[in-house]
């Protein structure tokens, strides 16, 4: 397989812009306008869209590499970019045979549109994405939808939102569809403000989303199919990739700290050196499991049916739980190494932002909720005991 290194090269400028503004974005809890513009300037928004529609047919591995690079520089930029690509993956996987979504994909590529997501819902639903309260209400060739969307990252900045809802007012909560609605087709009435510990630049405010759009903008497949075949896997892999970027930067800072210490006292191994080695060990686990996850996803895509299997779902859930736990452990470990210089907010070894951003990982679809799902599946699924395969 040939690796597309030019995507990483093209992302380098955006990464450096992201790094320049990250403290300000974090402090003011504001959208990373400059780095997102740089990503658009580098034409990196539509790369997953098929070539024949004006994109570059980029694979998930190359996009994950871009997310990891951004994650080293500004977690919020990386998360916005990753969430956009997760939405793009649903368009690519499920909109390919559908005239409206094909035309929309061409638009995403040519206009470098930013895609948002509204799965989370108020009224006791939270991050349980397999159920909705709100419903599509058909009105001739159009539909109306009102959703109490308690978290929509960059809701004010995105150009379109992919939103989940029950198929119809009389459908059960788990019978869901997903629709694409354009900025000109919805209004957002803000219900909460994203004033959080970390990931502050994602501006994940809450809104009442009111939309009216043609029914052709509803994906033909049930949402459960979309979740299983594109969304869950790409979300966990791309989140993992950007979390890896945060972790890698934390370890780099810890390593730089120890190296400076070692230079001052030649012949004496700094106290933190062993912890750096331990952090590097965890970082390698994180990296290998994301790479193995991407391999698994690519294999399952080729085998097609495998994407719907329980074993694939469990693998992808474990990947999210594992990488999010490693991230918080790695940042903690790095903080121990840098000590007070990591704790202070204005040194080259500061890790406060890393730590605050990292804390979102186990909560972004709560790991306990995910364990709840995998523990249910493990009542019937037998784990593969082989080492290879």
């Amino acid at each position: 397989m040939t690796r597309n290194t030019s995507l990483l090269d093209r992302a380098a400028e955006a990464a450096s812009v992201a790094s320049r503004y990250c403290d300000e974005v974090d402090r003011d809890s504001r959208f990373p306008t400059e780095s997102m513009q740089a990503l658009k300037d580098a034409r990196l928004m539509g790369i997953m869209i098929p070539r024949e529609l004006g994109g570059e047919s980029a694979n998930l591995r190359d996009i994950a590499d871009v997310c990891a690079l951004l994650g080293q520089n500004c977690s919020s930029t990386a998360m916005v970019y990753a969430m956009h690509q997760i939405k793009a993956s649903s368009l690519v996987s499920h909109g390919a045979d559908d005239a409206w979504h094909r035309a929309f994909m061409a638009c995403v590529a040519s206009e470098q549109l930013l895609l948002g997501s509204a799965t989370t819902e108020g009224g006791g639903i939270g991050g349980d994405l397999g159920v909705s309260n709100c419903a599509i209400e058909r009105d001739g060739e159009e539909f109306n939808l009102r959703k109490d969307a308690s978290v929509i990252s960059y809701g004010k900045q995105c150009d379109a939102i992919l939103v989940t809802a029950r198929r119809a007012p009389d459908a059960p909560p788990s019978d869901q569809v997903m629709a694409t609605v354009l900025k000109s087709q919805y209004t957002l009435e803000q219900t909460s403000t994203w004033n959080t510990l970390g990931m502050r630049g994602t501006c994940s405010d809450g809104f009442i989303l009111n939309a009216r759009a043609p029914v052709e903008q509803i994906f033909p497949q049930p949402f459960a199919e979309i979740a299983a075949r594109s969304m869950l896997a790409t979300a966990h892999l791309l989140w993992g990739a950007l979390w890896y970027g945060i972790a890698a930067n934390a370890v780099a800072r810890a390593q730089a700290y120890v190296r400076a210490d070692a230079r001052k006292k030649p012949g004496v191994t700094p106290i933190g050196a062993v912890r750096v080695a331990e952090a590097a060990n965890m970082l390698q686990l994180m990296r290998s499991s994301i790479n193995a996850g991407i391999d698994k996803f690519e294999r399952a895509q080729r085998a097609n049916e495998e994407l719907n299997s329980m074993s694939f779902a469990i693998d992808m859930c474990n990947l999210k739980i594992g990488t999010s736990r490693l991230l918080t452990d790695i940042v903690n470990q790095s903080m121990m190494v840098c000590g007070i210089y990591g704790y202070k907010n204005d040194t080259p070894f500061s890790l406060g932002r890393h730590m605050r951003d990292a804390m979102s990982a186990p909560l972004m679809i709560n790991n306990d909720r995910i364990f709840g799902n995998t523990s249910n599946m493990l009542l019937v699924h037998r784990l593969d005991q082989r080492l290879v395969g």
Partner: protein
Amino acid sequence: MNGTIRNLLEQHGRLPVTVSSLADDQDLYAAGLTSFAAVQLMLGLEEAFDVEFPERMLNRKSFASINAIAACLSEIAPQKAVA
């Protein structure tokens, strides 16, 4: 066999509709079957038919309708399925 499946679906399916209102080929997910309930149903079927669903059947499609479940059971335990 479909009768037993229907009984178990009634017990474990947590459907918002009565099972008797469903046709054998009707989409159970559209009728409200969740992935959680599908696993509970699967456990009930394994117990009732004394079988184990192989890995390749652990996917959404196998539980998409009463007929789909029956087809899986006939494949893994043909002698029990006719009973």
